[in-house]
């Protein structure tokens, strides 16, 4: 199974194994990784699953669609590599993905 590493705002890293087909958000929530709230449960409707995708992985995680772009624009501390983790699907290609968390989810 692909491995994903989440780095909390305070620097703590968590590496988890996830089934393909789940979202990166679910990877965190199902494994008790703190720092991702996911209030809407993955409906792209709350922007509380905000992560920064490590530069090396930006191309592989794909583009934001229109609704993700709209929601994420209201998150705090948005950067060009900001993504909503519920909108990134885990594939074999993403084995080794590293994402960082913002200071808080709003």
């Amino acid at each position, binding site marked *: 199974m692909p491995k994903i590493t989440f780095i909390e705002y305070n620097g703590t890293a968590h590496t988890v194994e996830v089934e393909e087909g789940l979202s990166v958000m679910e990877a965190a929530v199902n494994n008790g990784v703190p720092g991702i709230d996911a*209030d*809407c449960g993955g*409906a792209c*409707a709350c922007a509380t699953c905000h992560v920064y995708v490590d530069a090396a992985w930006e191309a592989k995680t794909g583009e934001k669609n229109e609704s993700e772009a709209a929601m994420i624009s*209201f998150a705090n501390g948005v950067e060009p590599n900001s993504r909503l983790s519920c909108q990134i699907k885990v594939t074999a290609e993403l084995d080794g993905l590293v994402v960082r968390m913002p200071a*808080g989810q709003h």
Partner: protein
Amino acid sequence: MNDAPIDLFAEAAEAARTTPIDKIDVSQPSIYQNDTWRPWFARLREDAPIHYCAESRFGAFWSVTRYKDIMAVDTNHKVFSSDSQLGGITIRDAPMSFRRPSFISMDPPLHDDQRRAVSPIVAPTNLVNLEKLIRERSQKILDSLPINEEFNWVEKVSVELTTQMLATLFDFPFEDRHLLTYWSDIATADLLSGKVSSEEERNEILQQCVKYMRALFKQRENGPPRFDLLSMMARDPSTRDMDDKMFLGNCILLIVGGNDTTRNSISGGLLALNQYRDQYDKLRANPALIETMVPEIVRWQTPLAHMRRTAVEDFNLNGAAIKKGDKVVMWYISGNRDEEMIENADDFIIDRARPRQHLSFGFGIHRCVGNRLAEMQLKILWEEILARFPEINVTGPVKRVFSNFVHGIEEIPVIIPRRH
């Protein structure tokens, strides 16, 4: 569980079961005031989850009552508009001349710019700054409460704490802070509630708000940077040149947004713990449960019963043929009781696995800006309550607000028997 007298509740349950479906009208403020709304929505969720009411005091409207359908409307802002000129975000259509734009009642792109202008007020770093202040104030308010003597919890705690918070967010003269609560109540009052009797009267009172706020706004246009809602609006290109209507609209949005809602969560939480004593015991045994209790309070109370949209094109919503121009009401209060999404949804359970899975803050581009601030206020308050008082007992019937929008409580008589 509800607090209406038994016969009133039984009557409502019977009426909800037997009224012909097309005659059901959940816009009647009385069902919220007397706390008999549950069976009506249970019936709609079961028999007509997207329900058309052809005639009501507020005209014809669709009721969307299930969680998933509400989510579908809330996240489709292209079809379901919030525009104040179409009627805005409440079931009540203000007369054309009193329709006030504010960013909650706007669509993109202006909504987006104005929302971004004020949202730094609740950025994580600012929340950390506010935490200390909120704690000190909560402590002060709680320490001043009478022991072994009945008082109104709403007035002494809920209103006081939220009004102080609001004054801080606006950097509003502290001694005049009661004006904020007053304007908030006037802005949302039902015309049959006795608080205002006409839209003209409402408007006249709110013009005082414009005048007062304009003066502060002017002072804050220049000078060293300040961190309050008025200064943020005075300095952002999307909000600095607002006419009086939009200025008032946004002031009222920020006043009501942060006021009634948090107030009624503070009141509703105390009531819930009194109705579900086993949960109160569980909380006392393990105060760490405050973390999951807070979102559960916000779900259980659902401080805003609904948000309204207007369809700007024909749309098939899960089988319902909604026409361009139709009024569509998302009843959050009902979606939060939808058993398909929330187990034992009528019950107050402080250790749910996914407590933030509720509709009280809305979803999509209008999702509540202040949701983490509201949660933080509740969290701090309950930490301080548990540190002081072994119990707070509701001693008599509560008085609720006559409104289908603000789901609120005006009076909760309580006694605090002793301190720790």
